[in-house]
């Protein structure tokens, strides 16, 4: 995980199209020392280095449906915007 400074193309999870996958690099805008919702996201398996697939998003900029660690999660858009991923080629 010692790769913070490398120049990679990081985008928020919301930038992924349906069916695309990426690897989590960071969760931004957490409170304090990463508690609160950032912590919750990680407890649900969205830790840095994890592969995430965006299945689809609900209409009118609704929540995302993602696959992570073999389970299916619904993620509010506000939350998904704070998750940064590196898109898989």
């Amino acid at each position, binding site marked *: *995980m010692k790769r913070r400074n490398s120049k990679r193309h990081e985008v928020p999870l919301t930038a992924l199209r349906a069916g695309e996958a990426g690897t989590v690099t960071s969760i931004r805008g957490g409170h304090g*020392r990463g508690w609160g919702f950032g912590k919750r996201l990680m407890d649900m398996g969205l830790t*840095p280095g994890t592969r995430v697939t965006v299945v689809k998003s609900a*209409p009118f900029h609704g929540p995302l449906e993602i696959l992570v660690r073999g389970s299916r999660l*619904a*993620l509010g858009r506000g939350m998904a915007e704070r998750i940064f991923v590196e898109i898989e080629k």
Partner: protein
Amino acid sequence: MNKKKQKKLLIALAGNANVGKSVIFNHLTGLHQHIGNWPGKTVERAEGTLHFRGYTIDIVDLPGIYSLSTYSLEELISRKYIAVERPDIVINVVDASVLERNLFFTLQLMELETPMVIALNQMDMAKRKGIQIDIEKLEKLLGIPVMPTVAIKGVGIAKLLEKAIETIEKGPVKKRAQARYGEEVEEKIGKLIEIIKNVQFFYPPRYVAIKLLEGDEEIEREIRRIDPQIVSTAKKLADEIENIHGHACSTVITSERYEVAGCIARAAQKLVSPIKPTLGERLHNLTTHKIMGYAILAFSLLLIFYSIFTFGDYTSGLLSDLFYGLEPLFASAFGTGIVGNLIWGGIIEGIIAGVTIALPYIIPFYVILYFLEDSGYLSRIAFLMDKVMHKMGLHGKAFIPVMLGFGCNVPACLGCRIMETQRERLLAAFVTTLVPCAACTVIILGLVGEFLGIQWALVLYVVDLLIIFALGRLAFKVVPGESTALIMEMHDYRWPHLKTVLKQTWFRVAEFIKIAFPLIIVGSLVLKLAEVFGLLEPIATVLSPITVTWLGLPAIIGITLIFGVLRKELTLVMLATLLGTTNFAEVPGFGPVQMVVFTLVAMFYIPCIATIAALVKEFGWKKALFITVFEIAFAIVLGGVALRLLTLVT
């Protein structure tokens, strides 16, 4: 039975949400169970007892959670329970079809150093998804006995219990596998354990060390009271880890814990057949589809409401007839004097009112609700409705209590517990008290729908929804705090366990009876007394500046509104009684405009007495009173404005 000879055991069930924990709980305890709240908390606590091999076993079903940190009240309660009450064994229910994420929780339970066995549940679902699990290997890797189960069919439950007892009888395990973190982290944990090990605390030292590094608020607070130095040392060590890894220490620890869980899962499971879309998968795609999903949702909701109202109306009428058929019998026994009148009109009619709401409407509502929840459809509804609810500062899950509110506001208020924070529970509850319940629907359809036409009733519904939306948005802006976003698992569709659904319904109905009945009965007794002593007319006169001058309604409306506090549809019933006619169109001074104003006021003017009771139970007197007063004031303003606008137009 000689109770002294029986040995007592305490077993706790723990695991993620929706892994079949409550089904296992039901299998184990049968009818000997009790559902209440954790002392002083609005978190549900299910307990039961069973007798097995000469033991009396108490079983506690802990809330379904994903982690043992401080994210929610449920998590705090669970870990404290395990650490303080020290159950003889914890049965960790694990979903075999999502092994990795479930093991993440298992690893945390292991850190609490509690004796445990694993119920590897939903083996059938795992098999369908092409996942094969090597039980022995899993046991070896974790150092914990594992029992495969299919709870819904009752498979493996008896063996699970046997294994749990066996494990208890064997005594404490000496060597148990632990989640080993990376070298740097383990080194810091080691250092902290050295400082902590002499501190008397109910959590084990290694757990405290890990949680301090993660920055756990509760444990920091407790340890700071004992020795603030420890907390600052932990903070320094955590910063060191952050510097090495470039991520917050809690992130590092969570990642590494997941890595361990992943390693174990990968080693123990084998993906066999290529996964072809199962029926559940296809159903999922259909029910979350951007067009079909909403169509199915709308259709399901219409179907649900239509069937509940049809069933409710019929059964309610049947029950009323039955009860009122007893009235002559009662009158001959108690007479029609003041005492007989008070008992019948006050107490018995109160009970009738309660029964004719509770049985016909609330029971089917709950059965359907739990059926949808257990099957997994509710989470799809939350997914579809997230965007709409977001406008009110709530997320998709809040749609569920709102939906309930259309049936009855009382269960809706209680249903707001599914929201994560107290703020959101309050906001959601406020919105649900505005939702027109079955009783309001009676008014809308019975007055506006009947005399002005169904299209006007629909217009009123739309106006109503717009007002709810606006007020919800307002409340969200006014109430301080941050709103949270949806983070929700959508587990695979499955067939619900009917017995569990029925049991949950039964406990909910019992709760409703406990909350609502006393107040409905007292309320109707008070009203009857007021009537007997001739206080109703004076009250109507006192209210006339509002009802007559401001709202432009006949003075007797004041009386009907008082009765409506008991049950909203009584406003209409009383109106008919007082006027001596059900043909409201003939009443002078009660034209179409007045009908609309009256209906608007009746919809909003107060949560009914049972709803107020539910609000008090969930949020305390102050907030309940505030919501009530706000709604009274709002309805008065709304009615007056509507009157003036409508007179202008017509």
